[in-house]
C-alpha cells in the first residue's frame, strides 16, 4: 500500500521535475520517461504482490473537506487495475522517450508532466474509496489527458478534438456527481463502504446514472462520440495509454459501484448487453470503413469496450437470475478482456505510431510493403492484429471464449423467456469476430504487405530499440497471457480452470502442429529449386504498385452492405446547435478580461456566503 503511494508520489515528483528542467528537450524527456518507467515498475510490482497475496489493505486519513476523507483501499479489483495501469504505462513511457525525441523541436517538459500526472491520477482513481477523493482523481485524470490530447495544438483538428473531449468528459462527470450525491443522501456517507446500506434509493435511476457517467469515459455507444476524435489526436504513446488503459477506468467504475446499488434487476443486464452489442457492432463497422490508421484503432476500442460490456451484462444477468456459474463466466470474461485489450490495443497503437512517425502519414492508402522495411514493427503489429481479431492461440480469443461460453450456458440453463439477451450476445460476438478479422487483415495487409504505394516508403527504416522493445514485450505478453490464462484465472476463480485448460491445450496443439508443418515444408523445399518471379497478373508482365487493392476497395463489400448505419448523421449535432443558439445570448459575459472574471468569482462567493449565513 505504502509502496503504491510512494510510486504515485514519485510519478508526480518526476513529472514536476521534467517540467522544471525543460531547458533541453532531451533532458526533460530523460527525467520524465525514466521517472515514469521507474515509478510504474515499482507500482506494478506492489500491485502484483497485492493481487497474488489477496489480502485487503486500507488507509484512512482525515480531510478538512466535508464528507471527504483520504480513504484508499487496495483490494483484488484495485490491484488488478493497478497492474494494468502501471504495466502498460511503463512500456508506453519508454516508447515515448524515443517517440518524442526526434518528433518536434518544441519543449517536451509539459508533455511528460501531464503524462506522469495522468498515470498517477489513474492509479488514484482505482485506489480511492471515498466519492470526493474519487471524483478529484477522476477530474485530474480527465484534465491531464485533455492537455495530452491537445499537445499538438497548432493543428485546428486537434483543438477541435480536444474541445469535444473536454465537453464530453465533463458531461459524463456531471452524471457521476448526481450519482454520488444521491447515494450519499440516502446513506449519509460518501465512503464506498457505506453505500451498501442504500435502502430506499431508486436503484434503477442510480444504475442509469452510473452507466451514463462511466459509459462516457469508457466510450460506450451512444456516448462514444469524443473517443474517435481524441485518441488519434494525441501522440501515439498517449493514445496507447488512453485506449489501452484510461477508458478501462470507466469499466472499473461500473464493476466497483454497481454491486452497491442493490440487487440487480434483469433489465440492468439486458441494458448492458444491448449497449454492449450496439457498441461492438457499430464500433467495428466504423473501424473497417476508416482510412486513418489511428481512427481505425480508436473505433476498434469502442468495439472492444462493447465486448467487455456484454460480459458485464452476462455477469449482472447471472446475479439477478441466481446463476453463479453464469455470473462467474461473465465477470471473468469481461475482466480478462479488459487486460487483454489493454495489451493488444496498446501494442497496435505503438505499432501504428512507429509507422506514422517513419512514413509521415496516417492514411492507409498511402502506405504498403512496410514489412520488408520495418520487420520488427510489422511482426509485432501482426500479433496484435491476430489477437484483437480473437484468434487462437493468442489472448483475445481466451476472454471472448469465456463470454461466449457464458452466453451458451445462459441459454442452456435458464428458462426460455430469458434467452433473448444471450442470443444477442452470441450473434453480436460472432458477427463482430468476422468483421474484426476483416478490419485487421485490411489494416495489416494494406500497411505492411504488398509493395509501397509512394516512393517515400521505399527508403523507410526500422525504429530504434526504445520503441522496438516495448512492442516486443507487449507482443510476447499476447501469447503469454493466453497460455497462462488457466493458471492466473484459476488463482482468482478456481471454477475456471476446467474450461480454460482444454482451450489452451488445443491452442498449444495447434502451435505444435504448425511447427511440425513448417519443419516439413523446410525439409521438402531443401535442395529443390526455389525461384522468385513477378506476381501473377493474368499474363500481364509489368504490374505496378498502383494496381494493388486498396484499403477502401478491400472494405467495400461490407461497407456497401451496411451503408445505412454507416451514413447515420451525428445524433448530438441538433442538440449542440440548439444549445449554441441559446448560449450565444450570454456571450457578453465573456470578454477575456481577467479582472472581471475574478470579480465574478468574488460576487459568487459573497452571494453564497450571504445565502448560507443569512
Amino acid at each position, binding site marked *: 500500500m505504502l509502496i503504491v503511494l510512494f510510486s504515485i508520489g514519485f510519478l508526480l515528483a518526476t513529472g514536476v521535475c521534467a517540467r522544471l528542467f525543460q531547458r533541453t528537450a532531451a533532458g526533460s524527456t530523460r527525467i520524465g520517461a525514466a521517472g515514469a518507467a521507474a515509478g510504474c515498475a515499482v507500482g506494478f510490482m506492489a500491485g502484483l504482490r497485492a493481487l497474488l497475496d489477496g489480502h485487503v489493505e486500507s488507509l484512512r486519513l482525515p480531510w478538512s473537506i466535508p464528507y471527504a476523507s483520504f480513504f484508499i483501499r487496495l483490494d483484488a479489483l484495485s490491484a488488478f487495475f493497478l497492474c494494468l495501469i502501471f504495466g502498460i504505462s511503463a512500456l508506453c513511457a519508454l516508447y515515448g522517450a524515443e517517440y518524442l525525441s526526434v518528433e518536434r523541436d518544441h519543449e517536451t517538459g509539459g508533455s511528460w508532466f501531464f503524462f506522469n500526472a495522468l498515470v498517477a491520477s489513474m492509479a488514484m482513481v482505482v485506489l480511492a474509496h471515498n466519492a470526493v477523493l474519487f471524483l478529484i482523481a477522476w477530474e485530474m485524470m480527465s484534465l491531464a489527458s485533455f492537455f495530452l490530447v491537445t499537445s499538438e495544438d497548432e493543428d485546428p483538428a486537434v483543438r477541435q478534438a480536444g474541445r469535444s473531449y473536454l465537453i464530453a468528459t465533463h458531461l459524463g462527470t456531471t452524471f457521476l456527481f448526481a450519482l454520488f450525491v444521491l447515494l450519499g443522501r440516502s446513506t449519509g456517507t460518501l465512503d464506498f463502504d457505506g453505500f451498501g446500506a442504500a435502502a430506499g434509493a431508486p436503484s434503477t435511476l442510480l444504475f442509469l446514472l452510473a452507466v451514463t457517467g462511466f459509459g462516457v469515459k469508457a466510450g460506450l455507444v451512444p456516448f462514444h462520440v469524443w473517443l474517435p476524435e481524441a485518441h488519434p489526436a494525441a501522440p501515439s504513446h498517449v493514445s496507447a495509454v488512453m485506449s489501452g488503459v484510461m477508458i478501462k477506468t470507466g469499466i472499473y467504475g461500473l464493476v466497483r459501484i454497481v454491486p452497491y446499488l442493490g440487487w440487480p434487476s434483469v433489465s440492468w443486464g439486458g441494458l448492458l448487453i444491448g449497449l454492449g452489442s450496439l457498441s461492438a457492432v457499430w464500433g467495428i463497422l466504423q473501424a473497417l470503413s476508416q482510412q486513418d490508421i489511428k481512427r481505425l484503432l480508436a473505433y476498434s476500442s469502442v468495439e472492444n469496450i462493447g465486448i467487455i460490456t456484454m460480459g458485464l451484462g452476462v455477469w449482472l444477468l447471472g446475479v439477478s437470475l441466481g446463476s453463479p456459474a453464469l455470473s462467474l463466466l461473465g465477470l471473468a470474461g469481461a475482466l480478462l478482456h479488459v487486460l487483454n485489450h489493454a495489451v493488444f490495443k496498446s501494442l497496435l497503437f505503438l505499432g501504428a505510431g512507429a509507422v506514422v512517425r517513419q512514413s509521415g502519414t496516417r492514411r492507409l492508402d498511402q502506405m504498403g510493403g512496410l514489412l520488408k522495411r520495418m520487420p520488427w514493427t510489422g511482426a509485432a503489429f501482426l500479433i496484435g492484429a491476430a489477437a484483437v481479431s480473437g484468434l487462437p492461440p493468442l489472448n483475445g480469443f481466451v476472454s471472448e471464449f469465456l463470454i461466449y*461460453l457464458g452466453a451458451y450456458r445462459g441459454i442452456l440453463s435458464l428458462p426460455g423467456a430469458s*434467452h433473448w439477451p444471450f442470443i444477442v450476445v452470441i450473434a453480436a460476438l460472432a458477427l463482430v469476430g468476422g468483421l474484426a478479422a476483416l478490419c485487421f487483415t485490411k489494416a495489416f495487409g494494406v500497411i505492411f504487405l504488398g509493395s509501397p504505394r509512394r516512393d517515400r516508403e521505399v527508403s523507410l527504416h526500422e525504429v530504434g530499440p526504445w520503441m522496438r522493445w516495448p512492442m516486443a514485450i507487449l507482443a510476447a505478453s499476447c501469447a503469454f497471457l493466453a497460455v497462462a490464462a488457466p493458471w492466473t484465472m484459476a488463482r482468482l476463480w478456481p471454477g475456471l480452470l476446467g474450461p480454460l485448460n482444454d482451450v489452451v491445450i488445443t491452442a498449444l496443439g495447434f502451435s505444435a502442429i504448425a511447427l511440425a508443418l513448417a519443419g516439413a515444408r523446410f525439409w521438402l523445399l531443401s535442395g529443390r529449386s526455389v*525461384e522468385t518471379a513477378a*506476381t501473377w497478373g*493474368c499474363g500481364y508482365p509489368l504490374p505496378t504498385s498502383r494496381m494493388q487493392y486498396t484499403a477502401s476497395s478491400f472494405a467495400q*463489400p461490407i461497407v456497401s452492405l451496411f451503408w445505412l448505419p454507416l451514413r447515420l448523421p451525428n445524433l448530438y449535432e441538433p442538440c449542440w446547435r440548439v444549445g449554441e443558439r441559446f448560449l450565444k445570448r450570454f456571450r457578453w459575459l465573456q470578454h477575456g478580461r481577467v479582472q472581471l472574471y475574478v470579480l465574478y468569482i468574488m460576487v459568487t462567493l459573497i452571494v453564497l456566503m450571504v445565502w448560507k449565513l443569512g
Partner: protein
Amino acid sequence: MIMATLHLFMALTLSPLLLGIINRTKALFAGRTGQPLLQLYYDLAKLLRKGAVYSRTTTWVFRAGPVIGLASVLMASALVPFGGRPSLLSFPGDFLVLACLLGLARFFTILAALDTGSSFEGMGASREAAFSALAEPALLLSLAAVALRSGRLSLSSMLVSPLAWGHLAPALWLVAAAVFVVLLAENARVPVDDPATHLELTMIHEVMVLDHSGPDLAFILYGAALKLWILGAVWVGIVAPFGGMNPWTGTLFALAAILGLAVFIGVIESLMARLRLSRIPPLLVGAGVCALLALLVARP
C-alpha cells in the same frame, strides 16, 4: 479412443476423395467422363515433389500462410466427432474453438493473398473476408440451437445423442439448411463461389491462392479438402445422429452419409449457376435468420 483415432485417420486419408466424388458427379451430369476419382491424391503427390516459385513482392507472411492454414484445419479435425462416437478432444465450448481455428486459417490465407500485391488476389481476399463474417453468426446460432436441444456444450455430446427433436423437426430442418449454406460458403462451392470458373475476376477462394506453388499449394488443397470433411461431418452429425448404434455400423453409415453429401453437392453444382455477388449476402443472412428461428422454436 481407438474409434476416435480411426475416425481421425479416416478424415485425414479420405477427405480428398470427397472432391473427387463431387467432380465425378458433375462430369456425369455434363455427359463427360471426368477426371479420376483419386485425382486430388495424384495432384497432392505431384505438388509435394516439386520446388516452388515465389512472387518478388512477398514476405514471410506469404510462406507462413499455408502452414498456419493447414495446421489449424488439422487441429480442428481432432475436435469433430464422427459416426456417433466422441472425437479425440472434446470439452465444453469446443465448437467455438473449431470456429475460431477455421477463422485463423482464413485470416492467414487472406494475408498471404494481400502479400502478393495483386489486385485479383486482393479482390478474392476482400470477398472471402466479407462473406465469412456473415456466415459466422449463422454457424454459431445453429450450434446454439443444437446445444439447446441436446442440453450439452461439446460437439461430441451435442451430435452423438440421438436427438430428441420429436415434434420439433421443423427446427431441425432449419438448422440443417443454415449449416448447409455455411458449409457451401465456407468451402467455396456453388452457389457462393465456383471452383471451376476460368476467370480470375469471378473467383473467391481460388483466386486467393493463384501465386502459391509446390508444397505450399499442396498444403492449401489438402487443407481445403479437410475443411470440407470437417463441416460435412458436423452437418451429417446434426441431421443423422448415429449415436445409438454399434460403433462399426455407425462409422459405416456416417461414411456413406458424408459421401452422399459429396454427391449432393455435385448435383447442386450441376443444376444451378453461381449467384450474382450481390445476392450472396442475403443468402448468408437468410441462413442466419433460419438459425435464429430454429433457436426460438427449439426451446424446451
